[in-house]
């Protein structure tokens, strides 16, 4: 529709919608960045009191152990099942431990443990803080002389950053054992060769790269979950949406961090331990 030389748009075009999504994403990123800086400022001012910190550590650490045991256990067995057929075709069954353990320590252990914790811990944190927001408990904290970021976010950040790597180690350990058990007891692979090839190809670098990733996963899960909880809309629907967004955003962040750190660590590995013949 033309009028006085200008184009009037009654309905938003796909370009409008794309622009809106992009602007909303940039605003969200900026908001999360400011939230993170505020949290880090309070973290630098002082360690939270024990009576605030220990219950959060218990909720995030101890109560996540069963989920992590189950996750780790199945990852190891699934990897063995999936890789066995391919290795059997090449008559390399005895080297199954290599692929199971490298994949587990470097990639699937940290990522799947973080995804499970984003579901269990991240959603619970967002729902808890969202409920506190809509029932004015966060305002009450401010009114009673506490800073909500210092009181609620800093302990959760510390718990996630310190405990998610430990939980990842547990998942790795259980996964390594379950992968070996399934390979040796069900698939009939000789344990001696299973461990021999694992020792030859799995380095401590694989383990540490997984743990470093899990540090960043923990930070991302805690910050995104707390941010969504703090910005929850009113009502059961608002709190539910905050919990869902906490998981979805954390999941996307885990994949993005995994890719970026994986790439950086590969470059770092090439610099620290260059392999002859690679890259000219």
């Amino acid at each position, binding site marked *: 529709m033309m009028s006085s030389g200008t184009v009037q748009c009654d309905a938003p075009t796909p370009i409008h919608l794309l622009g809106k999504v992009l602007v909303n994403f940039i605003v969200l990123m900026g908001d999360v960045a400011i939230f993170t800086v505020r949290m880090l400022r309070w973290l630098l001012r002082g360690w939270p009191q024990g009576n605030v910190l220990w219950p959060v550590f218990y909720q995030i650490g101890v109560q996540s152990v069963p989920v992590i045991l189950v996750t780790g256990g199945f990852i190891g067995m699934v990897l063995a099942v999936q890789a066995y057929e391919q290795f059997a075709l090449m008559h390399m069954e005895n080297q199954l431990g290599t692929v199971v353990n490298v994949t587990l320590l470097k990639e699937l252990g940290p990522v799947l443990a973080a995804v499970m914790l984003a579901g269990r811990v991240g959603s619970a944190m967002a729902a808890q803080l969202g409920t506190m927001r809509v029932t004015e408990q966060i305002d009450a904290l401010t009114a009673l002389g*506490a800073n909500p970021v210092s009181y609620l976010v800093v302990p959760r950040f510390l718990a996630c950053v310190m405990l998610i790597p430990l939980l990842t180690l547990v998942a790795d350990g259980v996964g390594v054992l379950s992968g070996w058990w399934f390979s040796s007891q069900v698939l009939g692979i000789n344990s001696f060769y299973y461990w021999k090839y694992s020792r030859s190809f799995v380095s401590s670098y694989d383990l540490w790269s997984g743990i470093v990733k899990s540090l960043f996963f923990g930070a991302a899960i805690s910050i995104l979950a707390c941010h969504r909880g703090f910005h929850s809309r009113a009502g059961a629907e608002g709190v539910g949406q905050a919990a869902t967004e906490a998981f979805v955003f954390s999941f996307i962040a885990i994949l993005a961090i995994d890719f970026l750190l994986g790439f950086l660590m590969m470059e770092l590995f090439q610099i620290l331990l260059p392999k002859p013949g690679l890259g000219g």
Partner: protein
Amino acid sequence: MQQASGDILELRGVSRRFGSQAIVRDVNLTVEAGKTLVIIGESGCGKSVTLKLLMNLIRPSSGQVNWWGRPVASLTEEQQVQQRLRFGYLFQMAALFDSLTIYENVAFSLRQDRTRNQREIDDIVHARLREVGLDSRVVGGKKPAELSGGMRKRVGLARALAMDPEVMLYDEPTTGLDPIMSDVINELILNTQQRSQMTSIVVTHDMHTVRKVANRVVMFYPLARLGPDEPQIIFDGTAEEAFETCDSRVSQFVRGEAGDRLLELAAA
């Protein structure tokens, strides 16, 4: 504009928007020391937002909030935390921390302050709960979910009073309570005010509360029903004046008369 010597809180040209919707527009309000100011008005007219603006729990979109003559915006975050300990705030639904016990709720600000030992904290918590008619030995170990609405409100009041605040803010203190419990809360507000000459600001719909506790009444009006240049505070006077005014908007509210509002709602 010269500030009166007894004014301890002030909103100067304060507006607050949520998204595109203005809730509070260009409000000027001063709160006098030692008096009880009651804010009345229809639901959604910005009373509770004004209370939160006074305590800087939400920041104004424009305008200035002053505490004891000093702009709040000029205070650092730590200074604001310290200054807030001079306030007590009773939230509409009490806003007790549901993961903490009643004892821990009342002791919360005392522990945050870190200037008292455990024995002093114990004494204050027991005394404050006793003042609101609760026995700390009976309710102290319970969680908020185990108490009735009236008991939660009284615990909220005990928690707000724990630090001996200079200013008490009450957000709809009698909403959702039976008439007897409402009067208990009104008596507690009155006793607190009379005992320590505390400054109180009460947001309420309850005209019984207005008659009982108010030294001064201001009435807010919803912006949707006002012209662009009309002030949002349409009444400022005593409780008696509120009941006798010839302004139909005020008299309709204080008498609780629907008038032609049902027709308006149907037309909307």
